């Protein structure tokens, strides 16, 4: 009888093809009934060796490649790489260009968070938020499309400045978008954020305490969700971010414990609103002037190395650039925030339910293009 009633643990492959793995991530979970005993993360399915590509291209040529790291936030990536190169080459960026970069980066941040909002809703089983998020993202993408002509891989921030200036039409559209987005934001919260079922699904799930978050190198909303007030835009400003007034949201455990999935989600939602504020300030205070600094036709960097980090929608995106004085980087290392954020998955996906694994993964919000590079 004892043998007959024995239960077995099942090893389940979640992914690489699974509806909720955000791309090609493979989670191997060891389950005992509905309980997940262990999660093991396999990555690398999207590996393109972007760092090796970077070593073989000139600085100017590598900028479009940064679009493809975190494809949901390409302007932020462009910005990070350009700042790293400008830092080392001592290129002066005109003020107007810096403002436009901030505007582009914040627009892209909103677009990225809207996708995150939609996908987390979808993982909780609600399809409609996904379409609402994409509806507003579409408006935003249409504006960015007018700014730089592309819809996903923007390549907007260039070495020394930005690609194009904005027209009055774009400014008008953007203000219009800010207005509608503020209304929609309330609607989003009614539909998903404060829905009792959603709160029950996310609150107290996947709790990351403060120390664990720092130790695992989490950055961005995942770190702030754990109650650490740290935002590179505020605490280590770049590209004139110090001129804009905004607050940095952080998790306070309003619906459960500090550092749970709901906190991380809520940080993203509030960041959307803060980004709207920054965009309005950029439009109000946009200085006149050129949009491109003096960049030599053949750009050679002095011997040396620089680590430049920027606040990506997903966290600290770092570019470690080693130059040997040539036209190409000697070594280029990209610190993808998603890569480090995802590394906590093995530790979090223990002793929880199968449905929780999906929610935790969604709340960490990784982009596999950046994890695998």
């Amino acid at each position, binding site marked *: 009888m004892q043998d007959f009633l024995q239960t077995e643990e099942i090893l389940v492959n979640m992914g690489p093809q699974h509806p909720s793995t955000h791309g090609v991530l493979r989670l191997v979970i060891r389950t005992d009934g509905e309980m997940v005993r262990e999660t093991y993360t396999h990555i690398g399915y999207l590996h393109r060796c972007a760092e090796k590509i970077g070593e073989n291209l000139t600085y100017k040529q590598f900028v479009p490649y940064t679009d493809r790291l975190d494809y949901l936030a390409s302007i932020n990536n462009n910005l990070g790489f350009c700042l790293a190169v400008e830092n080392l080459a001592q290129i002066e960026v005109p003020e107007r260009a810096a403002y436009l970069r901030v505007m582009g980066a914040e627009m892209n941040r909103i677009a990225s968070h809207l996708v995150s909002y939609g996908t987390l809703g979808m993982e*909780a089983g609600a399809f409609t938020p996904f379409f609402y998020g994409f509806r507003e993202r579409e408006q935003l993408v249409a504006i960015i499309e007018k700014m730089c002509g592309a819809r996903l891989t923007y390549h907007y921030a260039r070495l020394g400045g930005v690609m194009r200036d904005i027209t009055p039409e774009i400014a008008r559209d953007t203000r219009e978008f800010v207005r509608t987005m503020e209304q929609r934001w309330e609607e989003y919260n009614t539909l998903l954020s404060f829905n009792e079922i959603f709160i029950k*699904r996310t609150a107290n799930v996947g709790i990351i305490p403060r120390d664990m978050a720092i130790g695992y190198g989490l950055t961005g909303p995942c770190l702030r969700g754990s109650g650490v007030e740290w935002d590179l835009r505020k605490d280590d400003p770049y590209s004139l971010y110090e001129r804009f007034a905004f607050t940095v949201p952080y998790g306070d455990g309003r619906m459960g414990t500090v550092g749970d999935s709901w906190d991380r989600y809520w940080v993203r939602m509030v960041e959307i609103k803060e980004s709207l504020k920054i965009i309005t300030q950029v439009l109000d205070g946009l200085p006149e002037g050129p949009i491109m600094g003096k960049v030599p036709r053949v750009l050679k960097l002095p011997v040396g190395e620089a680590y430049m980090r920027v606040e990506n929608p997903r966290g600290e995106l770092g570019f470690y650039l080693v130059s040997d004085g040539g036209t190409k980087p000697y070594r280029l290392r990209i610190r993808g925030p998603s890569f480090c954020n995802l590394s906590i998955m093995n530790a979090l996906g223990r002793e929880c339910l199968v449905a929780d694994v999906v929610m935790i993964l969604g709340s960490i919000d990784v982009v596999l293009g950046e994890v695998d590079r």
Partner: protein
Amino acid sequence: MQSYIDALIQNIGILQQVPPLIIYTAAILLGCAVVFGYISVVAMIMIYAERKVAGHMQSRYGPMRVGPHGILQSVADSIKLLLKEDTVPDKAHRFLFKLAPLLVFAGAFVPFAVLPFSEHLVISRMNIGIFYILSLAAIEVIGVIMAGWASGSKWSLYGGMRLAAQMVSYEIPMALAVLTVVAFSGHLGLHEITHAQGKWPWEWFASPLKSPFTAVGFVVFYIAGLASTKRLPFDLPEAESELVAGFHTEYSGMRFAYFFIGEYTAMYVVCAATAVLFLGGWNGPFPGVVNMLGKTFFLLFVMIWLRWTLPRLRIDQVIFVCLKVLLPISLICVIGAALQAVLF
């Protein structure tokens, strides 16, 4: 129904020459064919309505290509499903794998024997009508568990087990909610229950004016109905973001269509039963059939509406809602309804 056939035999001379058994069998088969046709049409309409409503709720159009505004989409889909290759996975238990969709479909099909469309348009006036529906709806669970196990896929197994846990627990509050009504009507037959309600909304069991206990019972029954038809927020057995497609992950073609039609038919049955039990059935200002179908389709719309609004619950929360929320509430309602029926 039998009385109609008897009358038919008496009036048409030639039928008297045929043995009654053959006539009855023919009548049964004919009835089944009619019901089957009706189910297919209703399922098609509902699938179309679901996609259209979902589309517009999400700021998009839904199907637009096949026919004007895509009204022939469901037809095209069913043709596609019919023509699709019917695959059976290597690791599947072939017999059970093939049997499961039929069982699921049968579970959704048989309740039509007692579901009234109006006062007279009913196949059988069974005196235990609602009991019959509740007990036969349980066949579906067996089919789903069978499908989950026989597929030989881990995701399917999870879906099957989740459904088993969910359905078994939700049948209790469902039955208790029915008892609140039965306390007033004093009868399990659907006709008698309908007759216990009046023509106007305040005379229905769903109205707190008639009895607050049956009004709560109505909500409990409807929620339990959502759970037993695997609709959001209780769609764990086929939770897409977790289990890929749950128990029907491995099914394709016609077998998948059986699950699909079965699911929508079960929704129809639950809504029709709710309409009869709590919303006065065919009573109302319009002709009987219109009232009945109107109420049923309204309830179906609410199901669709809920699905495209809510997130999904987790398995422990599903069980929590059933055992710790619905069960106590329905127990209180049964006692209250019984007291009210006896005392007033």
